[in-house]
């Protein structure tokens, strides 16, 4: 545990990707198995479970520290783990500390009732930086400024391999990655993943630019709707002895358990890339070419929130998949084929297989850049669609965001003039700034909160906003400051949904600060009614 904590300390204070990579490489080279594998999992975000809940940590600390003093400390430090690490009152050092893998095993096998006591005993044998490491690790909240992608690159460099090799293996190997690490060190053969149902890293698009639209020519590009659901990957192999099926989010999280209705009905041996949506005619399908009756993102949200959906929910909000790509079929990988070829195979296969709940994403036509613009306009009138996807027909399926291959053309963002109501300190680098803002819209002479935003402004603007909050604070609720209702924020967002979680009855999708209207009086901000008119139906 000491080495892991030391690594995190150094990573935290070291700037620069190369220097960080060097630190991690040194750690991998010196730390033993299985510790180093768990450390990699923690940094890459691939740990499968929380060791303990944030709430357990809160309960432990508030039974030991006066809650008022905790609140004041948290308000200053801006981050729970660090606050607890400093405030933990007991310290009986043990040298050496249990190893990282011991700790992981311990939490994995401890019964629910004993988690809290186990955590307390660990915290009491650690220094504040070590406690911080444990708390971050255990709640899977570790951010060391190294992306999962860089971790893979570091592993590739460590073993002198191409990062693509790591990418393909990544989702088939599990923490603590002993086989992977030993292969990188040349000690064992490459892990065999041929028959495993695994996540394939997805190919992503770039926002379209004017020059791309101007350069549009009909035969080079394939046009589709950009759907307003979530991107998923459906990986199925029912042709082997032990059939496997899995539904992954675009980041590789296994979300199968939440969508039994979809998984139940699929058979075959393939990996599909598509959009998950609530589709009311999902079950009645003959050949995959029907028009899906798509519901809103808000409807899907209700399914996403339920880890174990009830029968009634499965009935009232059935999901389906609009398929737009195929990555492998009958054991043959198609990622090196062009989109043109993949699309042909997909169409042929889907019309023959006729699997319920799977729909083919239709392609659209435009003969010129102007026709494309016209098409975008028409498509965006339908609020259930987010815009257009424009994909190069010759594109191979390349994980990551290759340049010039796929473009997304989103509907223009909506904006609303809202009034800042509350502010809260941010996290990490921003923990000494009030950087999270709750804003509201008018109903009569009352402001009702409609959302929260913490992005969209520059560092310079953040300083000004922080300063404004401090000068205009009128109340305090724990770490939250209530402010004078005087500052208008122009908030951009992608859509409005009805919501019963907010008193205002609306929820904004992806709200971010578009402009700060220092000039605009709060009384001239928008009303709730204006916003409700934007709700999609």
């Amino acid at each position: 545990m000491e080495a892991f904590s030391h690594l995190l300390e150094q990573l935290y204070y070291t700037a620069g990707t190369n220097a960080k990579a060097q630190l991690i490489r040194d750690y991998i080279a010196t730390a033993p198995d299985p510790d180093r594998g768990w450390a990699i999992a923690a940094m890459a975000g691939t740990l499968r479970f929380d060791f303990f809940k944030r709430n357990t940590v809160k309960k432990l600390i508030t039974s030991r520290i006066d809650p008022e003093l905790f609140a004041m400390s948290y308000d200053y430090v801006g981050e729970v783990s660090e606050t607890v690490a400093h405030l933990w009152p007991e310290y009986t050092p043990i040298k050496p500390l249990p190893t990282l893998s011991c700790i992981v095993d311990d939490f994995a096998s401890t019964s629910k009732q004993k988690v809290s006591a186990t955590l307390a005993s660990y915290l009491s044998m650690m220094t504040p930086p070590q406690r911080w490491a444990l708390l971050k690790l255990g709640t899977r909240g570790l951010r060391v400024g190294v992306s999962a992608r860089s971790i893979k690159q570091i592993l590739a460099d460590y073993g002198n391999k191409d990062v693509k090799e790591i990418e393909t293996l990544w989702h088939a190997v599990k923490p603590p990655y002993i086989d992977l690490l030993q292969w990188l060190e040349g000690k064992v053969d490459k892990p065999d993943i041929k028959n495993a149902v695994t996540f394939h890293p997805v190919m992503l698009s770039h926002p379209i630019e004017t020059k791309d639209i101007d350069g549009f020519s009909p035969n080079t590009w394939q046009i589709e709707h950009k759907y307003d659901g979530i991107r998923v990957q459906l990986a199925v192999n029912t042709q082997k002895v032990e059939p496997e099926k899995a539904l992954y989010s675009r980041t590789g999280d296994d979300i199968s358990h939440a969508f039994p209705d979809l998984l139940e009905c699929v058979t075959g041996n393939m990996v599909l890339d598509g959009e998950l949506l609530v589709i009311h005619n999902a079950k009645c399908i003959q050949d995959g070419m029907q028009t899906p009756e798509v519901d809103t993102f808000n409807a899907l949200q209700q399914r996403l929130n339920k880890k174990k959906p009830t029968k009634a929910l499965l009935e009232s909000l059935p999901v389906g998949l609009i398929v737009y790509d195929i990555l492998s079929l009958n054991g043959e990988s198609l990622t090196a084929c062009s989109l043109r070829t993949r699309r042909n195979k997909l169409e042929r296969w889907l019309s023959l297989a006729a699997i319920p709940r799977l729909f083919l994403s239709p392609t659209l036509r435009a003969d010129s850049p102007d026709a494309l613009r016209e098409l975008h306009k028409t498509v965006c009138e339908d609020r259930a669609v987010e815009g257009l996807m424009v994909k190069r027909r010759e594109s191979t399926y390349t994980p990551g965001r290759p340049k010039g291959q796929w473009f997304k053309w989103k509907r223009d963002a909506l904006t609303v003039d809202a009034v800042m109501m509350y502010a809260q300190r941010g996290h990490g680098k921003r923990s000494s700034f009030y950087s999270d803002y709750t804003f509201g819209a008018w109903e009569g002479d009352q402001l009702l909160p409609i959302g929260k935003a913490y992005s969209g402004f520059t560092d310079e603007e953040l300083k000004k906003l922080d300063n404004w909050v401090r000068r205009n604070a009128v109340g305090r609720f724990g770490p939250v400051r209530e402010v004078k209702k005087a500052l208008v924020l122009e908030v951009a967002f992608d859509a409005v949904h009805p919501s019963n979680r907010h008193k205002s009855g609306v929820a904004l999708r992806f709200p971010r600060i578009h402009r700060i209207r220092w000039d605009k009086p709060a009384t001239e901000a928008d009303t709730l009614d204006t916003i409700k008119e934007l709700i999609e139906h």
Partner: protein
Amino acid sequence: MHPSSWLEVNDIGLYCKPGDFYIDPMNVVHTALITHGHADHARAGHHTVYASRETLAIMQTRYGEDMADTQSEIELGCGLQFNDVTVTFFPAGHILGSTQILIEYAGYRVVVSGDYKRRHDPTCPPFEVVPCDIFISEATFGLPVFTHPPIENEINKLLHSVRVFPNRCHLVGAYALGKCQRVILALRDAGYSKPIYLHGAQLKLCDLYQQFDIDLGELIPVSEVKDKTELEGEIVIAPPSALADRWSRSLPNVRTVMASGWMQIRARAKQRNVELPLIISDHCDWPELLQTIKEVSPKEVWVTHGREDALMYQAQKMGFKARALSLVGYDEDEQGGS
């Protein structure tokens, strides 16, 4: 008469009406009693200044010989008379020459702590517990998250880093008055005998410390080093403001170090792009603040200079009357000794 009727806080600072003097005033006044030489306590231009010999010397070094028309050196522990008010200075353990001030009037004893700490500091006598009715305490680190580790630990971190990164110039940000000299002395105590290199802003005060017979070992101004690559693997001390400015760019392969009590909080260290934070403070940490309040055991605690909320809350929990005293001029980031 209760002190709240004759001790007042105004735009200038803490004013004692019956004695007609200010303590650590921020604007020019006729009579100023100065607890110590940090800029948020000692300003230039008063008519008459009362302070310790060291504090007067510090003020002269910073503001010139004529920093006040009349400069009266006090003697620790000896009472001075201002009308019916008796004033006595006691050591505060904060920096060279630092004092607390006891004010006695109308049967009440009030102690103004200035800034203080309880840890050993070779440059000044230790804080003295002065019994009183009202104790005006600073609260720079007045939150339970602040517990300062022993200075030896932090200095070892620095020496360890110098060993691990022998090609990097270790640039340590430390305030010119107090912190800088304390870091140097702790390095010497740990057996570091190589020359230590200084930014120009640190020179005059280090000279002054040496004049007070505090041996800082060999110090070399960075400006006298012709070939700056010689500073690889060396320790350079500069004011915190110099860490990110043009001056530091002339140094080779810099590793940024900062010595301050604030370094305990990750985000604060990160904000300043510090690679190696050293938690070294010239103020009390939270346990020491509580220990002091217990030992002084006044009837009332007035809290100023920092995070008043938490210390007031805690003092009340401990059974003391407590109130916040908002003094002007305090700025945690600008102030010297944190």
